[in-house]
């Protein structure tokens, strides 16, 4: 396996260097460096969007989710992604229109312009910072655990994390956004191929799809229906997850930015359809890996399951590709998140472009160090941690949605409403506020609160705006 890992890594690193060289220009403007000149076509666009969306979380978290909680994991992510890509059609069009009218450096800067106060930008940046740093750390954590299992005692877990973070910083600082788009395209392709190679092996080892599900039924029939053996996939949990996932392109700047930098609207619409198709293909492979795990390794830890199902039960070339694929997935997703934070910061910085760019590059480094620290502190429940991150950022979605949907200036009260919801959610994660009120989950209640308040604010503000010319 080691030989194959070396071969695959050599090819992968070679492709990354090629992408960096192709993207590197000495005197790039900050717009070129951070947003690739806003000219992405359909293929690169959908691969970079998918790679930013699907990550180590999909590669490791989803099979483990299927293994432990059953088939409801499909609704948790794939069905939610189906709704999300449809929503992108409407949201992407509105966002691009506002970005064209106001100028676009980043989502935080755009919000500051639309709301007429820098606080809107600061609040969006804070929400992104609070949840993207842990989300990026999830990726680093995933890969360090996986590499530690694959090569025991070769390096400590933090050593693997450090290699990834250093590669990430070098790649982002040299190549900029365009190089990241190329690495995303490489990662997206590897992810799809390797997941299906592993998924197919799992199906074959259990004697076909029908036989696989029969064996799962014998091992643990509760995995074949909702809410699953541990009762996780209730309709409330799945609905809350769907809302959080649908809001990802709204509230996570690395994805919102990718909608804006598409060459034109037609490309963006095609990209949405392609991302949906990609989601179905990628996530369906993880069903079979998870079901295989539920039969073969029902009581194993996540680390043991990943190392066995993704590596040791696979042919050596596939295992080699899996390691490179996971590294690539982790690199591109983390990179896109860190880079997005840098871009959001840049969009808020006053002063000349050169100074803003220098500050941004310093902060790209600072964010990476923070991610590294978080990665060494967190647990292995990758999918659940990702869900917390999705939910946290989604609570700021009304601020963005009202900004792109309203013709007049939205009310600043929306920022306060979202901040209250955000604090309540953080309070529930810290155990200060109950995660359920009565029989209803707190996240569902917060969604009801913010959507109701937002709707009220939008209706009142629109009426006021209409009445002004008449008086």
């Amino acid at each position, binding site marked *: 396996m080691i030989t194959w890992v070396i071969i695959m890594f050599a090819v992968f690193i070679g492709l990354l260097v090629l992408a960096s060289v192709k993207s590197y220009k000495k005197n790039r403007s900050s717009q070129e460096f951070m947003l690739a000149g806003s000219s992405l076509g359909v293929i690169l666009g959908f691969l970079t969007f998918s790679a930013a969306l699907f990550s180590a979380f999909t590669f490791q978290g989803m099979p483990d989710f299927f293994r432990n909680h059953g088939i409801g994991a499909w609704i948790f992510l794939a069905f939610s992604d189906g709704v999300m890509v449809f929503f992108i*059609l409407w949201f992407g069009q509105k966002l691009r229109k506002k970005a064209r009218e106001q100028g676009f450096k980043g989502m935080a800067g755009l919000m500051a312009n639309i709301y007429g106060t820098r606080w809107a930008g600061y609040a969006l940046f804070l929400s992104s910072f609070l949840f993207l740093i842990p989300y990026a750390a999830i990726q680093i954590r995933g890969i360090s655990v996986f590499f530690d299992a694959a090569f025991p005692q070769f390096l400590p877990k933090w050593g693997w994390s450090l290699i990834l973070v250093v590669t990430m910083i070098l790649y982002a600082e040299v190549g900029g956004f365009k190089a990241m788009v190329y690495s995303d395209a490489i990662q997206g392709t590897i992810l799809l191929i390797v997941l299906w190679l592993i998924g197919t092996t799992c199906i074959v080892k259990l004697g076909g799809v029908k036989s696989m599900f029969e064996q799962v039924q014998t091992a643990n029939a509760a995995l074949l229906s909702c809410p699953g053996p541990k009762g996780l996939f209730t309709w409330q949990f799945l609905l809350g997850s769907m809302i959080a996932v649908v809001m990802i392109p709204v509230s996570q700047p690395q994805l919102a930015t990718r909608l804006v930098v598409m060459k034109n609207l037609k490309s963006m619409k095609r990209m949405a359809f392609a991302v949906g198709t990609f989601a179905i293909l990628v996530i369906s492979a993880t069903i079979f890996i998870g079901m295989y795990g539920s039969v073969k390794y029902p009581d194993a830890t996540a680390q043991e399951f990943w190392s066995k199902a993704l590596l040791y039960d696979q042919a050596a070339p596939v295992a080699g590709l899996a390691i490179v694929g996971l590294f690539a997935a982790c690199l591109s997703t983390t990179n896109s998140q860190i880079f997005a934070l840098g871009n959001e910061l840049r969009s808020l910085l006053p002063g000349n472009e050169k100074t803003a760019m220098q500050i941004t590059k310093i902060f790209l480094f600072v964010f990476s160090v923070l991610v590294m620290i978080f990665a060494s502190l967190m647990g292995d429940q990758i999918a659940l941690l990702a869900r917390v991150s999705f939910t946290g950022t989604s609570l700021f979605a009304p601020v963005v949605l009202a900004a792109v949907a309203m013709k007049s200036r939205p009310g600043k009260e929306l920022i306060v409403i979202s901040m209250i919801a955000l604090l309540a959610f953080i309070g529930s994660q810290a155990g200060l506020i109950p995660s359920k009120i009565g029989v209803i989950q707190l996240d569902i209640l917060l969604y009801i609160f913010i959507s109701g308040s937002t709707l009220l604010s939008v209706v009142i503000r629109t009426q006021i705006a209409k009445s002004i010319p008449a008086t």
Partner: protein
Amino acid sequence: MKKKKLIWRLCIIAVLIIIVFTFSPLVVAKGKIEPFLFGMPYTLWVTILLTIILVGITFIGGKVLPDEEEGGE
């Protein structure tokens, strides 16, 4: 143009119906695993099918969504 707007609205209605259907006891049914299709349990194959339909609606929606950009394409 009017026909495109109508189809776009029908797409939105179809997506809303699919969401309500999915989270109803008809799909997220506790302990229901039959009927199987291609060896897959009920909730799984139904939600895979619904996801494919959603992506299909996205394709149609992309064709008919009224264009507010670049003076049309």
